């Protein structure tokens, strides 16, 4: 499902080079739930961005469903991302001037799904994320937990092969965090492959089979 081999990422600022990821290697099987754990600045978000095809590595192999996503031409990469990757961000990243339903429709538009079918899929995703009752609300009228559920609905609506979550509970209170974890476990139970980058200790209470990858200073420890 996911193969990462000898992945390196170096940022160059002026004459200074900073190695953010250093020889990362791991494999993730289909249906696995993986926690990328590490303190802020350890390289989790960079790794997730590379897995999502939003950033290019400096060197190393990244295969998702056997596709070398770091080497795909842009046109294919956008298509691949829209079809195969779902992403939940720390700050939710909902589009403020679209209703929740329209926000969830966005990935389907990118996948060229017909409007009628897209609406059905979006409503199903909102129902699955338990936020269907807020479908006509704008993001600024939603609480943090509601926004996060909307973001989950948007991430899973196109039925991606891989769901990536970047610090999903960082802006949630403990009740909403717990609710998010329950949802995560439900999706895992349904066979969704999930990678969560987090340093939130609440994930230590995760009551399902999962694997932890600890990252420190850009290396797996």
């Amino acid at each position, binding site marked *: 499902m996911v193969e990462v081999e000898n992945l390196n990422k170096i940022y160059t600022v002026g004459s200074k080079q900073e190695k953010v990821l250093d020889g990362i290697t791991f494999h993730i099987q289909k249906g696995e739930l993986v926690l990328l754990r590490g303190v802020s600045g350890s390289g989790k978000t960079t790794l997730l961005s590379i897995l999502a095809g939003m950033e290019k590595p*400096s*060197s190393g192999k990244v295969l998702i469903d056997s596709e070398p996503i770091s080497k795909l031409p842009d046109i294919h990469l956008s298509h691949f991302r829209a079809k195969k990757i779902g992403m939940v961000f720390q700050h939710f990243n909902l589009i403020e001037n679209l209703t929740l339903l329209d926000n969830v429709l966005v990935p389907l538009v990118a996948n060229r799904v017909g409007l009628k079918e897209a609406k059905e899929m979006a409503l199903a995703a909102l129902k699955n994320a338990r936020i269907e009752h807020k479908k006509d609300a704008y993001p600024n009228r939603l609480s943090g937990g509601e926004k996060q559920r909307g973001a989950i609905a948007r991430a899973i609506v196109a039925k991606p092969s891989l769901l990536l979550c970047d610090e999903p509970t960082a802006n949630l209170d403990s009740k909403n965090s717990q609710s998010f974890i329950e949802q995560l476990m439900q999706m895992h139970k349904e066979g969704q492959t999930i990678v969560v980058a987090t340093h939130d200790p609440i994930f230590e209470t995760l009551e399902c089979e999962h694997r932890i990858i600890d990252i420190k200073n850009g290396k797996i420890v």
Partner: protein
Amino acid sequence: MNSLFLNNQVIVYIFSETVLALLTLIIFVMALKFIRYWDFNSFSNFQLKLEKEANLVMTIATFLFTLKLLLLIYFVYTIDNLSLIVPGAMCGAGVISANDYGMTLLFVKIIVIFGLLLFLVVNHYDLLGKNYPLFRFKSWVIVTAALLIFGEFYLDISYFTNIDTSVPVSCCSALFGNLEGANPLPFGLDIKMLLVLFFTLYFGAVVALYLESRLLSTLLLALFGVIAYYSVVYFFGTYVYELPTHKCPFCMLQKEYNYIGYLIWGSLFFGLYFGFIWVIMSLRSYKLERIKLASILLLTLFVAINSFYVANYYLHNGVLLENIK
């Protein structure tokens, strides 16, 4: 330096060509690097860097090559306008033959445009593949086109700096009038035979393209290109001008003739280009139906426009011009 070099349109043209030549130099060097080091199967830092640079280079190349297409039209427009300054010239034909560089420059430009169109098509299909299947070929097209562009730039400068505005040039009336008495057509053809060949080669080229015969298409398109040029200058053009002695490829580009020359020559060249591009791409196992269709339609448009002028003249006057003997 002559006064013509300081003409506004020439300055704009030369400045634009200089900028594009500098951009060409950048992509030329990068394309050589790609040819030498590209290895898509590698995940090394160097290869990933090359892939990022490739994105930039292909964007620059697409921008540059699209501008070159527009600049060719501007070049034709410029030399046509210079006929007001160059003594003896009545249209671009006089200006382009003002020195030895002119016709060579025009010929090189026509070849360059073919190279650029080929790049745009190859680049499009390369990016449709997930592993850049035409990348090396595309890089070679860039290198070849760049070399031609450097040559073209040298000819541009040489041409515009060597037009002597104190010496009258020969224009279409004198240029083609000189040939009276001698047969200006190739292979000793007369006009009737030229027209038979014109229509036969047109049908042949269209059928060869339709039947997807590469060798026959190449041969017939090349022959049709040559015969079509002479047919327009020595026969069809006279119906555009409605004057049997006016045998000029340039005057039809002027306002007096509704700029029809741009459509006539444009449909011919792009029809031929697309035909050749179809042949080249089919050699690499790409069956480009749209390109083939575009070639057939453009060549048909070319033949139709030319035929229209003859038919229109005949319907209005009940006779043909005197040039069919």
